[in-house]
């Protein structure tokens, strides 16, 4: 018997038992649904983090800290240059000018700039309230979404980028209104005596207003100033304290992404902790992969359950159709073809279930995508991305699983003795 004829007969048998076929398929459909969605979420999630990391980091850049001290039980040995800067927040060793000079001399290093995080008192402007603020360094390689204004290249030394929230708080009528106006940042000189505190007001012109974007995670709440402005502020605040000239993190710019990897290896050998953009991506992706793995596990469990469903259904089908099988064998149908008939029925069930499951997943994912993106406030980025390849793999995989489940019942059908099957009482 030709494969084509066996396939048509298999499909026809299933059509004749519609309810049973559909229910068995639905069991596989649940697995197909879960697996398709988890694959799509993995693809979407990785693409999203990829975009975030690319938008927020420069592939040629490394961020460098000193290796944290090896954790040990009990009191630690005093080394002379442990930090006490940020209280309990950071208790590793700090980078100083000697470290920076050393790193600068390495092959492929273009520049080393310490990250200044000046701890200012407040931000304000005339006739307005005072607000606490975090100041960060503007980096041209980081993508920002502007509500008003824009920056070409780097910021000038007296320029600042506000966030939309501060625009409102500081009494501007709109983001556009803030552009070109000035704000004041007041900082304490930490080394001044408690009895005669000293502070200074730094004036900045608003160059731009950043708005929330699905891709920008660093600059969403910080006010941004140029690296040199940050250094001025930092130096004013810390001059005369032990933190002066010591930095937690430094950005190292190299000539290329591959050079960044080489410099990283060298720095690691020298006792520094260096992270490239790829490392950051790797960490986030590991997290996504674990999550995806858990989802896939649920899907696999559903598929496993449906395997028993198929075996059961097909066994019942063989029993019900004993006479039909007997007749076909009496008419000279070969054992191989009888077996194929039942395996192909299982294949049809797998194809149907796989199609229903992946179809529902695609429909649901397509509907859910904008809702999820809105809820997470990530703009029009899709977190669930279906690829034709993944869908094909799921369906083909489930057809194979179904056929394998159909092997035992098919063997029973093939072995059936036609005389027994055709005996009438």
């Amino acid at each position, binding site marked *: 018997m030709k494969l084509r004829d066996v396939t048509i007969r298999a499909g026809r048998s299933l059509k004749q038992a519609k309810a049973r076929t559909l229910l068995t398929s639905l069991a596989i459909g649940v697995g197909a649904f879960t697996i398709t969605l988890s694959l799509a979420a993995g693809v979407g999630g990785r693409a999203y983090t990829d975009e975030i990391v690319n938008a927020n980091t420069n592939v040629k850049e490394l961020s460098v800290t000193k290796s944290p001290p090896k954790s040990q039980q009990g009191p630690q040995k005093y080394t002379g240059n442990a930090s006490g800067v940020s209280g309990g927040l950071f208790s590793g060793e700090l980078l100083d000018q000697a470290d920076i000079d050393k790193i600068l001399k390495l092959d492929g290093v273009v520049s080393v700039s310490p990250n200044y995080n000046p701890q200012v008192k407040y931000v304000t402007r005339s006739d307005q309230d005072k607000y606490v603020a975090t100041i960060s360094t503007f980096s041209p390689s980081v993508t920002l979404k502007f509500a008003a204004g824009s920056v070409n290249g780097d910021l000038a030394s007296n320029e600042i980028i506000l966030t939309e929230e501060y625009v409102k708080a500081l009494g501007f009528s709109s983001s556009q209104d803030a552009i070109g106006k000035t704000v004041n940042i007041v900082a304490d000189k930490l080394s001044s005596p408690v009895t005669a505190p000293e502070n200074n007001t730094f004036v900045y012109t608003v160059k731009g207003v950043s708005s929330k974007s699905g891709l920008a995670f660093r600059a969403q709440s910080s006010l941004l100033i140029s690296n040199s402005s940050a250094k001025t502020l930092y130096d004013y605040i810390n001059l005369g304290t032990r933190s002066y000239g010591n930095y937690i993190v430094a950005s190292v710019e190299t000539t290329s992404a591959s050079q960044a990897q080489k410099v990283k290896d060298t720095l690691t050998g020298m006792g520094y902790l260096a992270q490239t953009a790829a490392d950051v991506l790797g960490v986030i992706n590991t997290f996504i992969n674990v999550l995806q793995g858990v989802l896939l596990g649920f899907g696999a469990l559903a598929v496993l359950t449906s395997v028993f469903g198929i075996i059961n259904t097909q066994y019942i089908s063989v029993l019900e159709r004993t006479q039909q099988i007997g007749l076909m064998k*009496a*008419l000279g149908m070969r054992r191989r073809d009888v077996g194929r008939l039942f395996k192909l029925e299982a294949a049809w069930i797998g194809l149907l279930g796989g199609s229903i499951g992946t179809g529902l997943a695609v429909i649901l994912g397509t509907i859910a995508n904008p809702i999820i993106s809105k809820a997470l406030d990530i703009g029009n980025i899709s977190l669930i991305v279906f690829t034709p390849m993944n869908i094909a793999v799921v369906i083909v995989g489930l057809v194979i699983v179904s056929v394998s489940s159909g092997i035992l019942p098919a063997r029973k059908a093939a072995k059936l003795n036609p005389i027994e099957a*055709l005996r*009438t009482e």
Partner: protein
Amino acid sequence: MIEVKKISKTYGKGDNAFRVLDNINFTVPDGASVAILGKSGSGKSTLMHVMSGLDKPDSGEIIIDGKNILQLNQKDIDKFRSTKMSFIFQSFFVQAKENCYDNVSLPLEIADVAPSRRKSKIETALKAVDLLDKIKSRAKDLSGGQKQRLAVARAIVNSPQVLFADEPTGNLDSVTGGKVEDLLFDYNKKNNVTLIVVTHDAELADRCDMQIHIKDGKIDSIREMKK
């Protein structure tokens, strides 16, 4: 020509041994019609199964066209059945949920007849049993007599050399049964196809060229009918 030589078959072992067929010998010429008669349980169906290669005897030979079919391998015996033999059963065994066309198509599919050549064969067979107008009807919507005619169409569609019928009219009233009988004997005469009918219907047996009476697994008598 079918030669049945020294066929014996036993069920069970030792004290429980039960001899269904005991040294059966006869020869059927090509195109003959043969009735196998006997009481229920005498071994008629078993003999028919052995003659068609569905069942294996303990000893003996079944020689069709000079070949001992009991020595063929499974693949060849399947091929032999799909191309040269066909069956009609007491309980019809038509596929209730399939339409008449698909029912009759089955032997052609099994025998690997090309799809393009099937339609005309199926229509010819259905026409021969007067069911052409039911070609799209499902078998379960047919009456008993129509079902058995459908089974006849299925049996003749691939132009077999030998037609085996196991009590073909056993489940039918005399009028519809008579119609099925007419079909079988017509086909036997017109196409010179060997017809082997298991029956306990004496009237049916009287229409055959040859009667083989079986009693407790042995041949009781063989009668050639003169016409």
